[in-house]
């Protein structure tokens, strides 16, 4: 059994600091295992949120060696062995205690977005028919586990703290899931431009890099939505075509 040095951030909304722990790590240990060991053997009051330990609940989001990751999916043997492993809470949200942050802002933003509004059912039993091909595009976005790592890494929220003007990648994925669904009749493009502030995104692709579900957030959700915003707000030719076709506003 090997020993690894962990520096774990401990504190609350008033401040905190990195505490150092020497932890014995078994083969196949993930960071969450080590945190649990610290909690069990050295710091019983260490606060950490977790649930499934299988990368599906999105609860154990944190920053490991400065990068947003799920602690349960980050193997200790894949991190540099010659340096201490730092574990910090997500920096985009207020700290509750130690590694636990208050992510409730995300749920409030989600609740403010125009709901899914399906067209009239295709069949008498109230169901719709969709081609599998058309299902697959929004299906990618349904893989989101709401770990909010994409929100954490996004510099618009993380560094510029524009929580009042920018919804963040998670919610663009949520909107893309509805906007690209052939059954949906809702139009959220104006909302994307104004309230949800998609124009603040400058395409750093950090959200895509940290997504544990491998959702191609930038290329498949954000940029296609930006293009729809261009259609509606910045492209006079597209507006003219819509007007001629009689589909414009």
């Amino acid at each position, binding site marked *: 059994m090997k020993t690894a040095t962990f520096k774990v951030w401990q504190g609350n909304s008033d401040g905190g600091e990195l505490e150092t722990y020497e932890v014995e790590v078994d083969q196949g240990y993930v960071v969450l295992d080590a945190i649990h060991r610290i909690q069990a053997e050295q710091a019983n009051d260490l606060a950490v949120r977790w649930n499934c330990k299988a990368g599906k609940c999105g609860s154990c989001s944190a920053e490991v060696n400065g990068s947003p990751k799920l602690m349960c999916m980050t193997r200790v043997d894949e991190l540099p062995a010659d*340096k201490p492993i730092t574990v910090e809470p997500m920096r985009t*949200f207020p700290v509750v205690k130690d590694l636990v942050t208050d992510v409730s802002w995300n749920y409030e933003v989600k609740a403010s977005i125009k709901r899914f509004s399906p067209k009239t059912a295709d069949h008498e039993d109230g169901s719709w028919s969709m081609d599998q*091909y058309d299902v697959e*595009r929004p299906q990618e976005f349904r893989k989101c586990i709401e770990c909010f790592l994409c929100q954490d890494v996004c510099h*618009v929220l993380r560094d*510029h703290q524009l929580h009042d003007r920018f919804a963040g990648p998670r919610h663009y994925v949520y909107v893309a899931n509805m906007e690209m669904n052939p059954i949906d009749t809702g139009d959220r493009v104006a909302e994307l431009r104004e309230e949800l502030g998609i124009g603040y995104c*400058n395409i750093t692709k950090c959200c895509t890099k940290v997504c544990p579900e491998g959702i191609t957030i930038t290329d498949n959700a954000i940029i*296609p939505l930006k293009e729809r915003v261009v259609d509606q707000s910045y492209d006079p030719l597209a507006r003219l075509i819509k007007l001629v076709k009689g589909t414009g506003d």
Partner: protein
Amino acid sequence: MPSKVTALPVRRTFGQTMRTDVWWLQPVVVFVVFTSFVIYSTWAAFQGSNYYSGNLLSPFYSPLIWGDPAHSFTGTLEPGWWPSFLPVFSPAFVILWAPVSFRLTCYYYRGAYYKAYWPGPSSCSVGTPREAYMGERHFPLILQNAHRYTLPFALLLLVFLSHDAWKALWFETGFGSEELGLSIGTIVLTANVVLLGGYTFGCHSLRHLIGGGIDKLAGRPVQRAAYECVSWCNSRHMIWAWCSLIWVAFADIYVRLCAMGTWVDWRIL
């Protein structure tokens, strides 16, 4: 939208991070390669000479509308409307605005050069130098939304560059006729078209215009196939972008050195 988020952690200053990897390497590489390209292409555009060698035309000068009368479309050295107070005319001046505006507003390059030149941020989870931020909502960056308007010109250039690659397959026999052949220059110009094609056909705006803008592609087999092709190129947009950028500069260097007599275009077939 809910706005109240209290007691956020203190923002980190420029370059501050807990990352332990070499996060600075990528923006530095982008900065060096991109800056080198801009310097070289500007220098090459101002030369106004050595852009033609035998059956090879530099991509920086294609299509040759004005220029060497023996090869240009108009048969004149420079346009009559060119302002006399401008001391220099180069055939590249009337061409390069198209690929420059296409790449400058490209979704991939935007992310890359914002990181390299306007560190906002330099890399993921690394502190930014400034607190204020406007994104692409205001002038001048709101102009990035015009990317789709640069696309037709980029597509048109591909037609001309394909024609150049075709012409590079034909060699003078010395008896007033031409024969089919293959030289290193032919391969260089053909590879240039392939790489630029991969980059241009993977454009995010093209992807949107060709099918991404609608929610139902089932029952439209041609549009669906086109969307699939563009999506395939799009998924490798970064690779196409860099390979085509480097290769187009190399193609100009190749033709230039052949024109100067430094290199000889070696004929394979």
